[in-house]
């Protein structure tokens, strides 16, 4: 049986996933509900896997479905759900349309590199680091490309349109500021995109079968698939058409073998065979198939899954703060990782730590629990950066250390965190930012404001300012009498949530006179004061006009 329709299904499904993912990353209208975004990113393999380690629940079991499908049909994920896979397919397709000569041929598997990379990654993971995952996870790489390269282009296009509309006195298309505050993520994304185009054109799905950790891991599972794509040796005439069609370069026509661990289940080979001799066969087809050796990777998966849940999160962040429980193992994992991450952050950027007006460690978004939890789980897909309505979330380069490369931080020079918004926590696919409610966020303290009196406008210029206090949503920054009629900021750290509005609004340059110092562990802030003094002179409804 050949099932030629499978390719059509694959193309349709992959385009649906791809276009949706691209849209989520470039959209600025917030038209898609968080629930929908979560649902459609549910199957992203590595993010789901990372989330599952933290929150052992069906809500994060997307990767299990992928494993199940892989055990039946091979690496279907790589040709449907994976946005990087589809991105490569698009370039391969374009290349096929415009080039006469197809250079893609069978290559021997790069097992040395593949398993070394995966092994190294697993090893680093055991030492509780996300390093390599944030650089190699295909979904996050695609996310970085969409968020850092495509999104600014979409914004700029929109802004051009907005200007054109305005010429006709229509303000229906509003402009969206392109806020780029850090160039390395953009440069990295650009170079990676160039690389992936080059590889797609000359080497097909080389990345997926050499560097991609999801590809390698799924490849191990696909060795045990019940259905495999095989060549029917009796039908094969060794014409080699399937070899030319195979972008995974995994069909060896001499041996009449398909390296199914590298097959991304694109089904392009099915129609290429004039003898209809290639297609899905059960595991028992072609009996001389040699046994594959079981790999150790499976054990790691089960190990992590069997961890017992511990409500560390709830303990740290008040009762029922989060719907999630951290596993004990993961708690230690994150702690160890965080320490290493922070150590590297401090060694790299030691000079910034503790200097005036800059938080010693970057502030992490509400719901991320602690810098350790956050840096251990964020794959730097930059989805939060894309959906953040104010763009206070900005990608970093090395501020979280080498292992936390490109992870986003709260950049209060770029903007401040909207008091009523919990969007990033709702969409985060890896569980680096846990879902929180607006009510929880109102008292969630991600940092506290620090006032540097000697550079405040009120002190240096002796004029009124109060920009910080104006913007403060909890009035943790209050203007109190200073000299004469002047008032000066005073911070009540207990009710400060660390939203950064004060830091953003502060007009002093280059250092801000008020800034947010990160809470390494997010805490619970007190509710803003209820009863405060009445203004007795204010006109009462019963009073006459005071003039």
């Amino acid at each position: 049986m050949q099932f030629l329709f499978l390719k059509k299904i694959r193309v349709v499904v992959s385009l649906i996933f791809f276009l949706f993912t691209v849209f989520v990353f470039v959209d600025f209208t917030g038209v898609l509900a968080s629930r929908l975004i979560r649902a459609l990113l549910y199957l992203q393999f590595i993010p789901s896997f990372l989330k599952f380690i933290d929150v052992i629940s069906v809500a994060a079991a997307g990767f299990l479905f992928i494993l199940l499908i892989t055990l039946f049909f091979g690496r279907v994920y790589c040709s449907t759900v994976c946005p990087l896979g589809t991105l490569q397919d698009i370039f391969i397709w374009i290349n096929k349309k415009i080039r006469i000569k197809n250079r893609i041929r069978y290559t021997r598997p790069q097992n040395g590199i593949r398993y070394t990379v995966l092994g190294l990654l697993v090893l680093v993971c055991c030492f509780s680091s996300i390093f390599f995952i944030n650089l190699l996870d295909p979904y996050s790489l695609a996310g970085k490309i969409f968020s850092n390269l495509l999104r600014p282009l979409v914004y700029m296009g929109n802004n051009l349109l907005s200007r054109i509309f305005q010429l006709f006195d229509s303000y229906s298309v509003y402009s969206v500021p392109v806020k780029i505050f850090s160039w390395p993520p953009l440069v990295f994304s650009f170079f990676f995109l160039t690389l992936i185009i080059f590889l797609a054109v000359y080497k097909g799905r080389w990345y997926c079968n050499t560097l991609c950790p999801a590809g390698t891991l799924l490849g191990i599972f696909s060795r045990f698939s019940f259905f495999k794509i095989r060549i029917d040796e009796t039908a094969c005439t060794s014409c080699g058409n399937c070899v030319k069609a195979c972008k995974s370069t995994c069909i060896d026509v001499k041996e009449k073998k398909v390296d199914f661990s590298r097959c991304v289940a694109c089904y392009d080979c099915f129609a290429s065979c004039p003898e209809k001799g290639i297609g899905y066969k059960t595991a028992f087809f072609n009996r001389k198939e040699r046994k594959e050796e079981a790999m150790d990777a499976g054990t790691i998966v089960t190990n992590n899954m069997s961890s017992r849940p511990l409500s560390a999160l709830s303990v740290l962040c008040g009762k029922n703060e989060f719907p999630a429980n951290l596993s004990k193992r993961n708690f230690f994992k994150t702690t160890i990782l965080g320490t290493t991450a922070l150590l590297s952050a401090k060694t790299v950027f030691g000079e910034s730590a503790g200097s005036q007006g800059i938080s010693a460690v970057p502030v992490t978004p509400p719901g991320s629990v602690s810098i350790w939890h956050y840096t251990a789980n964020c794959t730097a897909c930059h989805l939060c950066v894309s959906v953040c309505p104010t763009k206070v979330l900005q990608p970093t380069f090395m501020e979280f250390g080498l292992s936390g490369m490109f992870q986003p931080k709260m950049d209060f020079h770029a903007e401040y965190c909207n008091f009523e918004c919990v969007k990033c926590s709702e969409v985060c696919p890896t569980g680096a930012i846990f879902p929180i409610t607006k009510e929880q966020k109102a008292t969630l303290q991600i940092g506290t404001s620090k006032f540097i009196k000697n550079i405040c406008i009120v002190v240096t210029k002796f004029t009124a300012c109060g920009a910080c206090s104006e913007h403060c949503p909890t009035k943790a920054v209050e203007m109190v009498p200073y000299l004469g009629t002047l008032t000066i900021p005073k911070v009540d750290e207990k009710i400060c949530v660390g939203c950064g509005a004060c830091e953003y609004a502060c007009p002093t340059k280059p250092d801000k006179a008020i800034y947010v110092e990160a809470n390494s562990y997010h805490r619970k802030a007190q509710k803003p004061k209820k009863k405060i003094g009445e203004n007795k002179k204010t006109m009462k409804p019963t009073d006459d006009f005071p003039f």
Partner: protein
Amino acid sequence: MDRRDFFKKSILTGVAAGAAMTFGDFRKIFAGKVPPPGPPAGYDLVAVKDGEPIQMFDKAIASLGGMKAFVKPNQTVVVKPNIGWDTSPERGANTNPDLVKRIIEQCYSAGAKTVYVFDNTCDSWNKCYENSGIQKAVKDAGGKLVPGNSEGNYQQVSVKNGKKLKEAKVHELILSSDVFINVPVLKSHGSSIITASMKNHMGIVWDRRYWHKNDLNQCIADFAGYRKPDLNVVDAYRVMTKRGPRGVSEEDVVLMKSLILSKDIVAADAAAAKMFGSEPADVSYIKLASEAGIGSMDLTKLSINRIKM
């Protein structure tokens, strides 16, 4: 007036202003020939209390000769409420949406061509517009709600007679519209005691930080003389008497149920300060603006219509 006409008009205005400066107050030149502007009663300020925003505004504007005294047929109008914060109408941080709606309706009744509404907000503009209730109010009244978030819409102007503020980037609608109606909400403010008409102008310029950095009160007073609104409508229905200008909860709000209308931006703020419980002279920018001759803070010298509903 559309964009093309705007430049024409800017030049003409410049010439007229130059002429006025050369010959002194041009009103004196034409004295006796042209009937004095304004309503027959000639009130400088109208204060209303104990009513709902819509009824209070109707009564107040009628006593100033109706909206027709301000808006001529086919003119463009820009209404500038305070939509600075992402909070609900009950919190009193933004101008009352009912009031904004009524003003737009009255402008259209007077024959306005287009009524624009915008603010350069502090919180995210789209959330402010939506949650303040003003988006719906403008839509219902048929006005044109314009985002104030794009620097491209702001044009560099020089502020004549400005002591600290010499130039500013002003939203093009303020420059191009025939009529400018300023609709602030009266609130407390941590560093300038109150915020009302003059401080509401911080939402028509692009770079507010410059003001904060260079003597806030002087900048407010400087800019008040740049483009005086044709009408100031101070919403004192829900008044944030403490923890302003953003406020923390509804506890900061006192139901004052009042409204002030005046062509004189300084007088409007002086009356608002009185209602708030402060002396106008204590509010630095009111004093500075009054001294600069932008308006009068001495309410005893003004003809005031006091209306109780």
